[in-house]
């Protein structure tokens, strides 16, 4: 938890340096913010690993089929990656690229959720009969 505080402090320092670099060399400001993003996302992802293993074991105990947990994690990963790409493009001013990335992320999530919809439909139809 104390790492979290030092990370926030590092973020503030890096933001100041980025602003400093913005009027001299805008491309380095972008690279610096990308590095900052990599640092924080890496820290967050590394802390997610134990969380996911406990969620997986809880799901097995609760009897939920692991297929759905896998699809859920897949959608979570796709949304995380598209969020990273979109926020970087938006910050650099490429609004069109940012919207395309989020659109692609939505389509990928929809594609990976199709089996769940089919299973839901079958379940509801069997209930009706």
């Amino acid at each position, binding site marked *: 938890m104390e790492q979290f505080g030092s990370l926030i402090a590092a973020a503030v320092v890096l933001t100041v340096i980025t602003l400093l670099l913005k009027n001299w*060399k805008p491309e*380095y400001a972008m*690279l*610096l913010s990308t*590095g900052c993003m990599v640092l924080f996302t890496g820290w967050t992802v590394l802390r997610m690993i134990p969380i996911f293993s406990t969620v997986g074991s809880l799901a097995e105990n609760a009897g939920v089929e692991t297929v759905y947990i896998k699809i859920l994690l897949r959608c*979570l*990963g796709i949304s995380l*990656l598209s969020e990273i790409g979109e926020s970087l493009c938006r910050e650099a001013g490429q609004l069109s690229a940012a919207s395309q990335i989020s659109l692609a992320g939505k389509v990928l999530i929809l594609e990976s959720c199709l089996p769940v919809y089919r299973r839901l439909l079958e379940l509801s139809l069997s209930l009706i009969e």
Partner: protein
Amino acid sequence: MDIDLIFRIAAIGIIVAVLTQVLIRSGREEQAMMTTLAGLIVVLGMLVREISGLFGTIQQLFGLY
């Protein structure tokens, strides 16, 4: 995934910015552009390695491969 990488990028950015100002003032615009390009490539090299490591971890963690 440690913090000195980020401060190294910031240091390179500031050094290149100052260097290009000096070069431009002394009339060597081409060298200034070359210096910016070189600094950019160095920083991109470092960053790409970190980003690929991050994306590899994310793919392996969320099962996206």
